């Protein structure tokens, strides 16, 4: 196993996935780091690394006992500090509006089942249906149905929160 190649190939994608899942960049960085440490301790064939990393990271997130309270706290604090760091070229009004939209997206995500969140975020990272099925332990034939349902549900929640397809631009 070429650890450096694995890190280079999967780190960005894994961090994006975990950060979207937990809404806490520090925690996401910790989870990703721990996932790679575990990979170092348990070398795998190259074609198994990506799915294994995402599964380990998802389990680490799930096992994080403080997660729920942290997320709730972050939701309430998001308004105050979400983009104040690293976005200094935007005006205060724009930063506040963006923070509100971020909080709205996170609240919409929280309304989904954890399994549905994981599926949608893995799909977004380019996982194939067969890989998603294996990761969440469902029949491959049911992935499309579950994904479509979750996608429509999240889209509806985002619509309610007035998040549209040009929000991130």
């Amino acid at each position, binding site marked *: 196993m070429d650890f450096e190649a694995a890190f*280079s*190939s*999967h*780190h*960005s*994608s894994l*961090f*994006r996935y975990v*950060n*979207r899942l937990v*809404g806490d*960049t520090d925690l*996401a*960085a910790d989870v*990703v780091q721990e996932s790679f440490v575990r990979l170092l301790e348990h070398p795998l064939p190259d074609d198994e690394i990506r799915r294994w990393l995402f599964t380990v990271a998802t389990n680490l997130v799930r096992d994080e006992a403080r997660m729920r309270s942290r997320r709730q706290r972050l939701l309430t604090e998001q308004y105050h500090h979400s983009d104040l760091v*690293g976005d200094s070229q935007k005006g205060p009004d724009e930063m506040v509006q*963006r923070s509100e*939209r*971020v909080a709205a*997206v*996170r609240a*919409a*995500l929280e309304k989904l089942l954890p399994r549905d969140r994981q599926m*949608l*975020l893995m*799909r*977004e*990272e*380019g996982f*194939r*249906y067969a890989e998603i099925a294996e990761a969440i332990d469902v029949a491959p*034939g049911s992935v*499309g*149905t579950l*994904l*479509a*349902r979750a*996608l*429509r549900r*999240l*889209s509806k929640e*985002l*619509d309610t929160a007035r*998040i*549209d*397809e*040009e*929000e*991130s*631009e």
Partner: protein
Amino acid sequence: MSIQETPGIHADDAALLALLDDEWAAGEQEALRGHLHSCDRCAARFEALRFADRRVRAGFELLDAPTPFSNCRRHSGKRRVMR
């Protein structure tokens, strides 16, 4: 999964999303696209799914933060080909 081309039979959301996600084999993909050209109902649902997908992607992108080590790592996110 199989694609029904029988008149009056419509593609379900799973089939349509699989088309959006490039999950179908080439022949099945072509058959389903052919069906969408002749079925307004399925075409409308496909567009609705595509719109939902764009909205969800935009929402996810709002959540993103700079990746640690991003100055020395290239982006490895895989883009889907059919959107």
